[in-house]
């Protein structure tokens, strides 16, 4: 697997994971100090899923995302300056401060939106894939959804539509085991399970969609599975589902007391930090020296520091801005 991926690409993936990590740690601090209003859902621990999948896509492919969407945005190439500015509600934000953390969009990057409604974006990916197919294009669409969304009606409807219309869409289930506080597939020490399916692979197959379970902490495993799904979609062979098993290192949102999670479980998962796993693999296979990786680490950190400076120095929007962008003619 590794030799077939150019070194340059591997390092780019590594850097994106770090950018996400530093972005999220910065957001965590900003939230704690009251500089980010509203809600923040951090992607720390899940970096391998966004980077693994999106590294298998073309720049013109579409994605839809979730309330925990920062990682998908950065992996899709959004400008971290304008992202951080958006999360802080600034005028220079990618959505002019009108979306915020849960609703980041960048149409120029094929990023059709993070979404504050669980499962809300899944049918949009289906529709974008439908448009691509009807126009005779080979652009594909990826719907990132969480394990919680797998119990949401609109997601199940989306799976069926994608299957009957054989659309170039990939459903990526980021299974971090918890839908806010409730366990999804497996009962835990503190709770029962809230999904009757044994796995989401089984459920997808029930919809006639090929699916695989993937180690969501291993970016190369995710990438490999994504490449196969992408190829199938581009060949016109229809949708796929990737069930990526991962873990969020922090709470559902910043401020979550985490009373529903077992500490031992948290520690076990944190030992499998996707960034450290990738780093070890790259070094142990002699693909890159630890020094080179440290340099990338410093670059990523510096980029986020620069983004933070940009966001902090940016002004808030003029208040009249609240009344624009409802309709294309700016009426409301």
């Amino acid at each position, binding site marked *: 697997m590794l030799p077939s991926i150019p070194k340059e690409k591997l390092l780019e993936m590594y850097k994106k994971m770090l950018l996400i990590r530093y972005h999220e740690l910065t957001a965590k601090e900003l939230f704690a100090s009251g500089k980010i209003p509203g809600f923040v859902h951090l992607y720390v621990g899940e970096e391998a899923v966004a980077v693994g999948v999106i590294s298998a896509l073309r720049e013109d492919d579409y994605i839809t995302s979730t309330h925990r969407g920062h990682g998908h945005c950065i992996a899709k190439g959004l400008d971290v300056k304008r992202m951080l500015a958006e999360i802080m509600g600034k005028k220079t934000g990618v959505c002019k401060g009108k979306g915020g953390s849960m609703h980041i969009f960048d*149409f120029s990057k094929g990023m059709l939106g993070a979404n504050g409604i669980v499962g809300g974006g899944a049918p*949009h990916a*289906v529709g974008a894939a439908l448009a691509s197919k009807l126009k005779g294009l080979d652009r594909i669409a990826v719907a990132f959804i969480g394990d919680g969304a797998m119990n949401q009606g609109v997601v199940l409807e989306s799976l069926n539509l994608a299957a009957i219309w054989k659309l170039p869409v990939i459903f990526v289930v980021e299974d971090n085991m918890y839908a806010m506080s409730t366990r999804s597939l497996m009962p835990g020490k503190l709770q029962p399970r809230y999904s009757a399916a044994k796995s989401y692979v089984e459920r997808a197959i029930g919809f006639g969609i090929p699916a695989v379970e993937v180690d969501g902490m291993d970016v190369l495993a995710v990438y490999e599975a994504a490449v196969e799904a992408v190829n199938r979609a581009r060949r016109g062979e229809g949708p796929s589902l990737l069930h990526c098993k991962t873990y969020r290192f922090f709470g559902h949102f910043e401020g979550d007391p985490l009373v529903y999670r077992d500490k031992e479980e948290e520690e076990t998962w944190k030992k499998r930090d996707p960034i450290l796993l990738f780093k070890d693999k790259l070094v142990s296979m002699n693909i890159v020296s630890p020094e080179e990786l440290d340099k990338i680490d410093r670059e990523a950190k510096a980029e986020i520091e620069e983004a933070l400076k940009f966001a902090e120095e940016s002004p808030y929007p003029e208040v009249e801005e609240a009344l624009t*962008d409802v309709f294309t003619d700016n009426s409301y």
Partner: protein
Amino acid sequence: MSTRKITFTEAINEALRQEMERDPSVILMGEDIGVYGGAFGVTKGLIQKFGPDRVIDTPISEAGFIGAAVGAALAGLRPVVELMFVDFFGVAMDQIYNQMAKLRYMSGGQLKVPVTLRAPIGAGISAAAQHSQTLYSIFAHVPGLKVVVPSTPYDAKGLLISSIRDDNPVIFLEHKVLYGLKGEVPEEEYTIPLGKADIKREGDDVTVIGLARTVWHALDAAEQLSKEGISIEVIDPRTIVPFDKETILKSVKKTGRVVIVDEDYDRCGFASWVASIIVDEAFEYLDAPIKRITTPNVPIPFSPPLEQYILPDAKKIINTVKSILG
């Protein structure tokens, strides 16, 4: 333009066909709109002409296919979606009011969502509480949705063409009792701008405002009242969002008396909102209290006499007009 008499249904069908011929990005989606031709026959013949790629029969998954229409619109298509009855919006409301309506705003104006969502509305055929509602006020209440409610075949065609060409989400509501109504409609394509009211009958004594079927009740009442020497001006706003308040205010300033006839539920509804606009902006011109004839806040009953009892009609308009003329 050469016109001929066709039905409301045929006018909509013609608008769909002509827009699909003009613009390859226009597609239709909905339940039973293909071979069956739509629950009310509106899409008859279109799958034969444009094929199943552009006239897409969907499974019974309103949230899924309305959401897919939103995604397809983001990716450059112009979907026209048929919701079999407006009452079914409930199972898809998130995709309508949180997604379709808000994506442009939340993206800071990056996205365009040119979806037209067509749905039959209205009572009068004993379809009971889950297939008879009007509900335009709910859509109009949510920022980001345009709401169109035509009353004639001519308006239906011109407004639907404008709706399809609009780059914003449009909820296009068709009163099912009007489907068989015939009227003069040009064969050629034409547009009627959204946000332009139409004075359906000029008069001097009382302004009566109606939408969809209630426009016809108002015209019926106006005709009967004219025999008693009472002159009614009937105004059809045609679209609720955007709303042409100028035409209404101008009429109110002339007549000084207003009756608003609204088939939707009374509470927090269209009639109350229009009354509040008139009070805010033309209070000093009023010679009598504004009267509202609406559907009371009960589910639409099944039994014909019960249904008839709660709905606005010409008789209620006549009595109300007389009550404010003293």
